[in-house]
């Protein structure tokens, strides 16, 4: 694994600092899978005899974790190296000010990217009795991005099982077994790009016009959430700036 690659995803390692791992491991090795993973859903498994496999088939969970209140963290996302290789090709968009031409370009870029880069579903199973369960749960929050490192192999006792694949893959690739090696926070510059690229920025807002037929009184408008622009709650300007600032600060810190 080259230093250049590590610099992109683990600059702290390169600088001799302790990386922001949730589960500490040695440096990822060549046989490890390293993915940026988006957490779609977190739910306790109540019926291990009817697990939903990544290819949407039903399978029986035989690993000991399923006898110990297993929680399924359903994630999906691209191989980290493939994403980092492609990221420079995407223009960064300002979510509040996107032209039709930019949307069309982004959509075309995404379609090209998705032709080349597979997106496996990566199900991570962790027992509620696992010593690291709380830390893992705090890391794998629904709607968040995390760096997930896992390695192929049979589902052995004592290891946290990962089942990955997707229905659209070749038959032999639709369900594969692995063990979780580590979870790490995504660095702010990378997170900024993940959240921009894997968004609906390529889709315009609908023009929703209304007419009052006289029978209705207006509903109270919702109060904007703290930090949101009342006129355009999606804007969230300061948060975008926060991300950008964090990214710059992070670069300075890691380069210093």
């Amino acid at each position: 694994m080259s230093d250049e690659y590590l610099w992109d995803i683990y600059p702290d390692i390169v600088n001799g600092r302790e990386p922001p791992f949730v589960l500490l491991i040695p440096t990822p090795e060549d046989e490890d899978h390293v993915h940026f993973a988006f957490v779609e859903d977190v739910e306790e498994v109540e019926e291990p005899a009817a697990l939903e496999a990544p290819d949407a088939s039903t399978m029986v969970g035989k690993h000991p974790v399923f006898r110990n209140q297993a929680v399924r963290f359903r994630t999906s996302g691209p191989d980290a190296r493939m994403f980092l290789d492609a990221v420079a090709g995407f223009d960064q968009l300002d979510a509040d000010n996107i032209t039709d031409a930019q949307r069309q370009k982004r959509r075309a870029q995404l379609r090209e990217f998705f032709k080349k880069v597979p997106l496996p579903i990566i199900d991570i199973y962790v027992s509620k009795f696992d010593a690291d369960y709380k830390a893992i749960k705090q890391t794998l929050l629904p709607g968040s991005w995390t760096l997930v490192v896992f390695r192929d192999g049979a589902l052995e006792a004592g290891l946290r099982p990962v089942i990955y694949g997707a229905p659209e893959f070749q038959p032999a690739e639709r369900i594969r077994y692995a063990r979780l090696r580590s979870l790490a926070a995504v660095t702010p510059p990378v997170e900024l790009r993940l959240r921009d690229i894997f968004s609906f920025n390529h889709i315009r807002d609908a023009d929703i016009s209304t007419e009052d037929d006289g029978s209705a009184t207006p509903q109270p408008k919702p109060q904007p959430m703290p930090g949101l622009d009342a006129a355009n709650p999606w804007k969230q300007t300061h948060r975008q700036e926060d991300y950008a600032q964090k990214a710059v600060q992070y670069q300075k810190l890691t380069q210093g």
Partner: protein
Amino acid sequence: MSSERARELIVGGDLAQIDGFNPLAEVESLNGVRVYDVGQGDSIAILDNRDRPVLQIDYGGRQDSPFRDQSSEYIDKCMPAGDCRLVMVTHWDEDHWCSAARAAAVRGATWLVPRQVTSPRAVRFSTELTDVSCIPESRVGQAFCFKAMNGDEVWWEKIAASEPDASKHEDCNRTGVALAVVKRTPSGEGTVILVPGDAPFGRVRYYEHLRAQKLTLRGLVAFHHGSRSHWTEATRRLLRTWPVNRWDVRTVFSCSRDNPFRHPHVENYEEEMGETIEIVRTPSCRVGNDRYIDIAF
């Protein structure tokens, strides 16, 4: 004073047009709702007076999907959404859209979707749609209404703002779109069918307004496939106090026969609504040619 109080209760949704059209503008009237058997997930059509789908809500189904090894033509035939004027997605969990990734006709329709923080797989699917737009976040919390020619209504609302901040927990079930179908009589009475997606009933503000209008609850699609998560007092109270006719509330659970979460938890509904409900599970209709359950007015 009293008239002002009365007016406060009569709160209605804004009559809406999407990009200049009302998807029900040429629909004579509405017959009800059709819940397709898709395994674990949702795919629901709103039917016109000739039982034709005119508005499609979600197009999903993952575990135990009957379409697992079927062609796109077969999916199109079983869930004919190609002629719908509009397809709406309640939220972006994969079991609410994934059959559309393998079908053909539905992807050519006009789609109206919530802008949410979502998976790259959902983003990939969205790039395959040719005519798609997002509900503006500035419209969050506002109830809208499409009206058929006879006055039948489809209500919808994006119920909460999406949360793009990584430090905040976003459960997209609770920032999605919830719908209701209403048929009113000339005397002002009426009946309603609730289609909340994965959002708990208590999260949908305009449901309370519909209940307060004394519309009789004709049926509902259980939220989140009959999950017991987010089963709050607000949801309990809403179901407990909604006017009903005995034995007449058709309650549909759209889920797979086997699933890791032991959906559906029908006991929650039985506890709140007692003998008023007729419970129907989508796996029960996986025989014969009609693999769906209708809730008719």
